[in-house]
């Protein structure tokens, strides 16, 4: 038993005091509702919270056999698999390209972030109009190029890619800003040393930039994954999960189950499943990436 000095104890107490406000808020307003959600997931009750029936694990059994759940899960994974590389990749390439100073870079930097400060609802409305095959400007331009306009939001094939693109358009600027900061933190001397050894552009990028950016990259990637798993706004506004449920993501399914079907209990079951999946994927990804960091020392 290590005894602590009085001073240490005092410091520890202060430390606790500092985090107390946040921890209390989280406990009361996040963890408690979360636990209640867990409880809901084992129940079945109607819209007015009456006729409460304990379901034991039946809701979860139902979940495993529910085609709609697997469809939503698949859609969410599909969305994440494509969104994240685009979000990060685009952000990274752009960040590298505008690292230099100069008015043009500065201008671009400011501009690319603007979609991020808008509300996703407005963005979705904007894009819905612009891609409309009959009255939208983007479709019109495509038709001038000889491409026949398709009703992308009502096409089982193109709806999801469109939704993905809108999300990337809005959020890549956010990631770019963070990655830029990380890039600027890499010492020039590394590059100079490499150049003297004869390294060219791509090599410099792969051997110096990426590894040194790992901490920032891993945070951005995990953050993007979590965000993508929770995609809701643009799907809700642009396609409402259609056509043919091809864009119905997990959160959309939860929402629909709770508010269209009035099945709060089962909706909570799906929600718990989503939470567990997100948790597993994020932790796994994070571990993988930070292990890479450790290898470099």
């Amino acid at each position: 038993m290590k005894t602590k000095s009085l001073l240490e104890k005092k410091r520890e107490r202060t430390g606790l005091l500092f985090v107390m406000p946040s921890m209390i808020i989280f406990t009361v307003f996040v963890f408690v509702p979360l636990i209640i959600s867990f409880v809901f997931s084992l129940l079945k009750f109607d819209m007015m919270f009456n006729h409460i029936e304990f379901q034991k694990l039946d809701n979860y059994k139902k979940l495993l056999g529910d085609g709609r759940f697997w469809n939503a899960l698949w859609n969410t994974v599909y969305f994440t698999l494509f969104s994240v590389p685009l979000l990060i990749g685009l952000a990274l390439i752009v960040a590298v390209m505008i690292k230099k100073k100069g008015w043009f870079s500065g201008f671009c930097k400011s501009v690319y972030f603007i979609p991020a400060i808008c509300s996703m609802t407005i963005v979705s409305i904007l894009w819905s109009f612009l891609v409309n095959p009959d009255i939208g400007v983007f479709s019109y331009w495509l038709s001038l190029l000889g491409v026949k306009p398709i009703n992308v939001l009502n096409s089982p094939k193109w709806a999801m890619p469109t939704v993905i693109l809108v999300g990337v358009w809005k959020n890549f600027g956010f990631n770019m800003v963070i990655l830029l900061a990380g890039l600027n933190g890499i010492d020039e001397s590394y590059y100079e040393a490499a150049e003297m050894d004869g390294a060219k552009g791509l090599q410099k990028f792969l051997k110096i930039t990426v590894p040194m950016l790992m901490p920032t990259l891993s945070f951005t990637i995990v953050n993007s994954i979590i965000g993508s798993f929770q995609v809701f706004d643009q799907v809700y506004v642009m396609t409402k999960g259609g056509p043919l449920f091809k864009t119905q993501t997990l959160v959309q399914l939860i929402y629909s189950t709770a508010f269209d079907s009035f099945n709060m209990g089962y909706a909570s079951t799906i929600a718990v499943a989503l939470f567990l999946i997100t948790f597993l994927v994020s932790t796994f990804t994070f571990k993988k990436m930070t292990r890479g960091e450790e290898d470099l020392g």
Partner: protein
Amino acid sequence: MKKRLLACMLAGVMAVSALAGCGSTGNGGQEQSAAPEAESAENTEEAEAPAADNATEDNAEAETNNGEKTVITFWNGFTGSDRETLEALVKEYNETNDKNIEVQMDIMPWDSFYQKLATALPVGEGPDILAMATERIGSYADPGALAAVDDIYSSGIVDETVVPETLKENLKYDGKYYGVPMNFATLLLYYNKTIFEEAGLDPEKAPETWEELEQYAQQIVEKTGKYGFDMAVKDTTPMWCIMLWGNGGDIIKDGKAVFNSPENVETVTRWAENIRDKKFGPEVLTGGEIDKLFESQKLAMYFCGPWATNGFTNAGIDYGVAQAPKGPKEQVTQANAVGMYMTSSSKNKEAVYDFFGWWNSKDTQVKWSLGTGFPPARTDIADDERMKENPYIAEFAKPANESKMYLQQLTNFAEVDTQAIVPAFEKILLENADVQEALDEANAVIESLIQ
């Protein structure tokens, strides 16, 4: 250390509860009571009133705000062009009723409306009055969120005899009345006269049968390259059902799912071919999209309700409305209605009933009708002189008693629509699925849902 931790947490919890206490009595309470005084000037109903009215309203409230005035809350989703008329009428009620009742409206898009209900109703924080489409009655009456209002009819506050037949049955659930009429609409065929001329058709003659409709649409597509006729599939007032009914088919009849009946297969095959193969129009559209298509004059004909007349007239479109073309078995159209309901948690029954009665009075209905272009929800004022001001009203009122309403009397109509019917149409129209198969599949889903 553990003890310290516990003490800190307890202190924290106490602090939060103290704040909560502040919220319910002092802080929150103050905010709520101070707000009406300061903010009545900015209240929704008065948004368009000149300053003088606000001052009077303020004084009136200050004088009577000692418990005698009854405030009833009313939530609805009339965000469209009906909004102004609705607000003006409610304002009139507030100013002229002699029972010191004030109706406070909260208007929000229907999506948000249903979301809020889902959280507010279970804890009793809902409004006194709700307005929503009649097909939703089941979902809310069944779990007990609405109060039965049989006595408003039996006592004569609302006259049962002048409610359109179609509407009457659908204001009930399980044999009891739950709603009073708020508005009533039918769908007619809107057609673009300019495009008709362009295609060599007589702009004053709308198609009267299915054959004529197909002919006209074909001609329009061939001669002008524009869309001839289309029906929206999702997020819309239902349009496909008009065709289904026209050929003697239905979706649910006497408690059984009949979506895959031979008549329906025939109907859907025919019109799917027209739309998808003969390119009468885009395959799958939402209500908003089809409206915009007509507004941009790229579509010549479609079914729509009276709410669109103002917008199209303002857009300068030369159009007409006609009765739905006659199908092989029937001439029928879709009717839809919004009713007003009292929540079971409401404590102001008398005030609510008074407002309901006022809303359904002849005068109010005439004003509502004129302001929105909707046919009245009373069958006895169609000939009223004042109605002649808006020529569309008479047209929309014509099919009132022969129209049908879509998916009523269910507790889960939304699910039936989104999980069975819409996917079936999407499969058929977008993926060229076999009609019988798709309808069979959907029928099975409907059966399982209405068990």
